[in-house]
């Protein structure tokens, strides 16, 4: 209502001091004070003393902390950016300090799974939608916060840090959240778009990671741009097909967070998911690859989860299922490609009707 009031000077919270978390904290710090939560005391110390984290030089407005309660008390707006596998446990810890006036905008492109007792993602055969949740759904389940949004789009942390022009999407059913997100993030090198299709945008962010791995594999095989063009366009079709079945809206996949992000990650050697595919094609095993990385490649998880969802809902998703065989069974990249090239379905576009 009023343009200037107390909370304009209140800090904004970021949870997770990984690559993307640090980049977002820096973007926010241009407008506001930022409280940055990290689990690791060493990281906190390092940021406080050297203002350096994972290759980002941290803005002076950022204060690192290990106190979630303090963060929730001080900040009305919080950006949780932690890997999907830790997201729910983080929310459980944060939830007791949250109130309905809080606004949460997450930046995690992954899925959460709830498995029956004694099962692991490896042993479970199929997954249905009640077992697979997007991060906004986890927030809603674990806390009283309803005004939830997500950040998605082509946001490679290193490029953001270098202040290359880029854009992001804030998706939320609440216009209020979108407006706020724009206000907090926008600057002369960073454009922010709004989208009301929260679930669709989240799913787009997850599914594109799968295609990114496949794209890395093509590059690793030394194939050129024809192959990539083919992959990306078929990838979009697959993303929409699967995404709609999981509750997303087609429109969400055609914007900055869908095609925009897909093209970026599929072409970028900076992307961790791309790296996974690239190294696979070069003959490394998944285990070796994962050990060589300092942060989680969400796409690997996504392949596993989405493959098991497509089995449950009997969806056709050739790229995902073939990639699954390469990652977790003993199909080679070469065999996978020759299988896909012989795949019988060849209608170009079937999602616009």
């Amino acid at each position: 209502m009023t343009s200037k009031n107390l909370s304009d000077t209140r800090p904004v919270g970021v949870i997770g001091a990984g690559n993307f978390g640090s980049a977002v904290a820096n973007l926010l710090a241009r407008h506001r004070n930022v409280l940055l939560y990290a689990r690791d005391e060493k990281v906190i110390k390092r940021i406080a003393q050297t203002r350096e984290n994972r290759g980002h030089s941290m803005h002076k407005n950022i204060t690192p902390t290990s106190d979630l309660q303090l963060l929730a008390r001080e900040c009305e707006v919080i950006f949780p950016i932690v890997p999907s596998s830790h997201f729910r446990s983080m929310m459980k810890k944060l939830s007791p300090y949250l109130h309905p006036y809080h606004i949460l905008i997450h930046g995690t492109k992954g899925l959460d799974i709830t498995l029956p007792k004694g099962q692991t993602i490896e042993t479970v055969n199929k997954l249905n939608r009640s077992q697979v949740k997007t991060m906004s759904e986890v927030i809603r389940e674990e806390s009283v916060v309803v005004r939830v949004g997500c950040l998605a789009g082509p946001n490679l942390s290193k490029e953001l840090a270098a202040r290359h022009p880029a854009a992001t999407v804030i998706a939320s059913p609440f216009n209020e959240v979108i407006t706020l997100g724009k206000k907090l993030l926008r600057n002369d090198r960073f454009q922010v778009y709004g989208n009301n299709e929260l679930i669709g945008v989240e799913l787009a962010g997850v599914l594109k990671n799968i295609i990114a791995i496949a794209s890395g594999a093509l590059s690793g095989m030394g194939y050129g741009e024809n192959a990539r063009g083919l992959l990306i366009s078929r990838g979009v079709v697959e993303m929409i097909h699967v995404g709609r079945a999981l509750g997303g809206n087609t429109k969400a996949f055609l914007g900055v967070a869908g095609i925009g992000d897909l093209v970026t990650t599929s072409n970028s050697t900076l992307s961790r998911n791309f790296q996974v595919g690239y190294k696979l094609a070069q003959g490394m095993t998944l285990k070796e690859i994962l050990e060589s990385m300092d942060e989680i490649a969400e796409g690997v998880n996504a392949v596993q989860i989405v493959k098991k969802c497509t089995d449950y809902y009997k969806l056709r998703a050739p790229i995902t299922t073939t990639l699954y065989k390469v990652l977790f069974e003993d199909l080679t990249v070469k065999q996978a490609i020759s299988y896909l090239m012989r795949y019988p379905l060849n209608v170009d576009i079937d999602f616009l009707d």
Partner: protein
Amino acid sequence: MPVEVLEKKNKNKQYKPILEGIPDWPVYRLSRNRKEFIEEVAQKSAERIKQLRPTRKQLIDELEATVYREQQRMKRNRWRVDPPDEGKFWSKIKQDLIDLSGKPLDDHNRKEEEILNVIVHRYASEIAGNFKPSSYRFAREMIKFWFSRLLNASRVKKFGGFFRNQYTLRDKIQIVGKVKQLRSLARKGTIVMVPTHFSNLDSILIGWIIHALGLPAFIYGAGLNLFNMKIFAYFMNSLGAYKVDRRKKNLPYLETLKMYSGIAIQRGAHSLFFPGGTRSRSGMIEKMLKLGLLSTTVEAQRNIYLNTPPGEKPQKIFVVPVTLNYHFVLEAPELIDDYLSIKGQDRYLPEQDPHGSWGLVKFMIKFFTKGSNISVSIGRGLDVLGNYVDDEGNSLDVHGRVINTEDYFISNGQLTVDAQRENEYTRMLSQRIVTEYHRINRIFASHLVAFVAFEMWQKKHPKLDLFGLLRLPEEELALDYAEFRKTCKRIRKKIYQLKKEDKANHATHLKGKIDLVIKHGLENVGIFHLKRPLLYNKEGNIITQDLNLLYYYHNRMVGYDLEKFI
């Protein structure tokens, strides 16, 4: 004849009224200040409409559209309750608008606003209920007297049974669920009760239930079509009903209606409306709720927070979902016909009530003389965001921590008005109510057998779509009893499982020997229809006389994802 089996001894007891004298009832206070209340509704509705149509041109267009639609309605679909002077009224409005259009747009001194005021004022008076304590008491006693006479006449098999009081309505209608909490919340705040809607009988039934629970009369939104029937009109008026005319879809009417409901809630009048809008045509539990009236609860709560002076405790609104569970719905044949003709994209059949007052009386007699219990499940109270509340009215989060509902309306540390946000909240609330419906719905034996039989036939004809299936000749259909029994048992087990997971509820009669449960189900499903949806044949196998009706009763259990276990 139906057997009264397996139902746990009904522990329904008499509840004392929570407010002794009628003069304390909010609904009475509303009606005593009826005139002033209508003024307020009209004035605020006009303001709202002007906000929605900010330019003069937009407002005039809206008014012209309203007149056009009203005149069309009068031409096509007139009802007995419609006031005789409405033709004249709308011609006058039309003339005023024509006069207006003749003049240039700036020198007519806001005449269009005057016209708007006249219209909304008329609408507000049309909608307003007319609660009178004397006729409330009379109606209440009437209902009680005749219901129990009928009941005893049929049950007490002795000479003079008619005048005995051995059975009361309470034995016929079971009330289960969070009764104590509801009574407690009604003292602490304002109740908005939102029942499922399957039958025209619901309106009267729920009125009786509110009384039986010792609660003061609620104001209700009742379909104007019900007022066509004199017997209904009398009871509804006296029970505090206001009128909802679903033929009128124009903006001034809808805004006035919402304003009426909203202001009444803000003034603390316990309210009731059927959020599904009309009766469920398909027989399914409502999945999509009408958001219009529901949004008034969210808005009213926000206004209460805005207008409560600092230091005072703001009045809280509690949303209470209720399901009404029947073995039999009088109008089922018409409802399912409507549903199928809409779904089959045939021409639309306008709503008709072939059962006049007499039909209803006949039904009542049948209902009381021949078994077939009704049960009413009262759900746990919710705040306007769909959080559970405790008996004290505190909102709880999923972990049981007390939270402040006011916080949902706060941004930047201030209470703000944000229509888009509230629309979203209303949508969330409606989803929550639907979940609660499924959770508290009591599955009857009759629902089980109807569901299993229909799904088995569907499975036996995998290539037929719904309409193909419904076209099958009934006389050629029969289910082997042994197979039917096995499937019923399997599905019943799944229902137990759902109950354990707190996703559904079932009547106590669903337990026990499966043969008896099936028998109970078959004897009760759609019991008074000319053609029975399900019965035994001579060989003891299962047959149907009316697939459409079977489909209707089967639909009650759609939404639990049980189809795949057939």
